[in-house]
């Protein structure tokens, strides 16, 4: 019940959800792996400075959709995407659009923490360095501090910035990955089940972080946990068998969903 009241507070904060402009628009998005179709004409829009949660039973296509948003699917052989996805006004699958530039604007955090086998400092500066966002050491230092602070990790690691990132605990590693993504200053951050490999305490920290990041970034998060979706998101989209079943304000979705299947899923009838 505590949960509900918090959602209610969210709702109050986000009055006029519908007036918030769209950051990304997905229109008739279909994805094929070879001959197998994984997504069926999904139409889903992502609002600016909002946390959008994608939920659904496993294999429902939620991760696949997430990965179309920064074209990570390009790295999978024989994967094909049809339909149209725009970021602000630009079609991200347009031939003129550069995938590197796109990913610098739409960052990603993965299911399993995947820090590079380098120092914490180098992990965070990796993005800024390749994109040439900072040249001087002082600038980089500043980015590292800000990013780690945004990721809530600064106090824990500030004395050991030059130790390997792989030496951190699982939750710290995931927050380091978030800091790494934040350091590039993207506009959108995609998170693919970021807490699935973490213990409950680490999960709570990351969720809190997501909450705070919303002020600066648009966030799309895939989660298998409905409680998590309820806790962190303002909008929720429910996928089933490659179809988008319903998209709605989160509190509406969890109290009074429009679709029978959503209700069944939320009530735990399948999944």
């Amino acid at each position: 019940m505590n949960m509900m009241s918090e959602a209610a507070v969210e709702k109050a904060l986000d009055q006029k959800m519908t007036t918030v402009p769209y950051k990304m628009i997905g229109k008739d998005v279909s994805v094929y792996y070879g001959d197998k179709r994984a997504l069926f004409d999904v139409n889903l829009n992502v609002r600016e400075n909002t946390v959008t949660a994608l939920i659904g039973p496993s294999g429902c296509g939620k991760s696949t959709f997430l990965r179309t948003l920064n074209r990570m699917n390009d790295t999978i052989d024989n994967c094909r995407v049809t339909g149209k996805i725009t970021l602000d006004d630009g079609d991200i699958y347009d031939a003129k659009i550069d995938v590197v530039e796109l990913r610098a604007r739409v960052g990603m955090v993965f299911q399993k923490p995947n820090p590079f086998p380098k120092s914490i400092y180098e992990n965070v500066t990796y993005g800024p360095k390749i994109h040439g966002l900072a040249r001087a050491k002082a600038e980089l230092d500043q980015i590292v501090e800000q990013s780690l602070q945004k990721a809530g990790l600064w106090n824990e690691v500030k004395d050991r910035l030059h130790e390997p990132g792989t030496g951190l605990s699982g939750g710290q590693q995931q927050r380091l990955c978030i800091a790494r993504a934040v350091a590039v200053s993207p506009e959108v951050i995609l998170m693919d089940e970021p807490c699935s490999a973490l213990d409950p305490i680490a999960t709570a920290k990351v969720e809190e972080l997501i909450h705070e990041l919303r002020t600066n970034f648009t966030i799309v998060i895939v989660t298998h946990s409905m409680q998590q979706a309820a806790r962190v998101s303002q909008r929720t989209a429910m996928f089933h068998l490659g179809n988008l079943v319903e998209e709605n304000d989160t509190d509406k979705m969890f109290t009074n969903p429009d679709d029978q299947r959503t209700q069944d899923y939320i009530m735990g009838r399948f999944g």
Partner: protein
Amino acid sequence: MNTSLIFLIVLIIGLAAYFVARSRAVTSANGKLSVLHSLPGYHGTYAAIWATLPALVVLGVWLIASPMLIEKTIRAELPETVTSQGSAPTELALGQVISVANGLRLLSDDELATVTSGSATLRETLAAKGVPMASEAATYLLASAQDYNALKDTSQLAMAAVVIILSIAGAVFALRGISAPFRARNRVEQVILGALLLASSIAILTTVGIIGSMLSEAIRFFQSVSPSTFFFGTVWDPRFAAAGSGGSEGQFGLLPLLAGTLYIAFVAMLFAVPVGLFAAIYMAEYARPSVRSIAKPLLEILAGIPTIVYGFFALITVGPFLRDVSAQLNGLVTGNYVNFIQAQSVLTAGIVMGIMLIPFVSSLSDDIITQVPRSLRDGSLGLGATRSETIKKVVLPAALPGIVGALLLTASRAVGETMIVVLAAGVAARMQLNPFEAMTTVTVKIVNQLTGDLEFNSPQTLVAFALGITLFAITLCLNIYALYIVRKYREQYE
């Protein structure tokens, strides 16, 4: 009774024991096979093992030990005039005794009588039978030869008796033990386990054999040439002496050979590492599956081609090509059409060896690179890095230890490579830095010193073993260190 007949008899006893034991097992079960602990076949095998294994072991030991013992007896019989001259003439006399003894076997009784009575010379009689002798036999020779034959006959007979009795005894022992609750299978399996253990000990024995044999021969070499002049000598000039003259002083400096070996290996790596590494990167990170499935096996063909073919390639194509190109270049620049690259040179050998090494570098590195987890690549790509940035800044640093291991293994192969350098590097042992000149390697000299007719006591041949153990030591260090690194690397991502 000759050895193969004894062997056959033992096998027949074994076979018989098998069937008898089987039927005894069946009988002892009284028609209810389920009361047997082990299947009848195991009882049979158990008996067959008892019938054959001890007997054959004794047979083997006997075959190895008896010639040694007989030769020792004969050696003791040789007159003092021979034995006092040292070991080489003694061995020569022993050899003569044995060849005469074998020759005597060919003679009929009558011929033997004429020889022993002295009415015909041994040399002529044997020559007629196709056994040549260098000179007329010394008097002791005939007696010793006859002794030798007599000893051999006795030994053979005793061996036959002991082996066959042992075989029968083994069979009887096994058959007496057979009963329904007898655990024949466990016993048989123990023997099989022993055989498996024996097979795997061959790997250890090989290493022991390599080290032991080379060390003992090398020590003989170091008795005539001091280790310091070998390991630190800068001149290689072994002066092949005519067989038997002995005592010729040669210089056996390892350093020029080692310099050539390392130089050629270095040139080869200089060529193979960038090509192989970039090929591996392209294969692992860029190539479409269809391209990969064609290009990878094609490149691996290079690894399957015997090195003698590379040597031939160097000899008739690469060497002459480099020589002619250098002459043309020289002509264009100076007007003097003289080649500055020799057909046999460090460069020729290095390039061709490099070609041979490309697939080693590429397939080892390919394995290593593909082991870098996908999540690291995704992490980097997800931040907006290009593929090459991901490879250079994330994948390669992560794979570095493994790649270093792979390169060390490749270097070990380059150092030990023989046929390419034999045909392409030349035989001149020089210490110099010009890659266009010929240099020679440790392996070339091992081949040089050991081909043709040789005498095993001269430093000229024994030096090959000193070179061999040096080569073995170098590659052993490289291999062990490389294998250690690669193993650590694998464990990291498993």
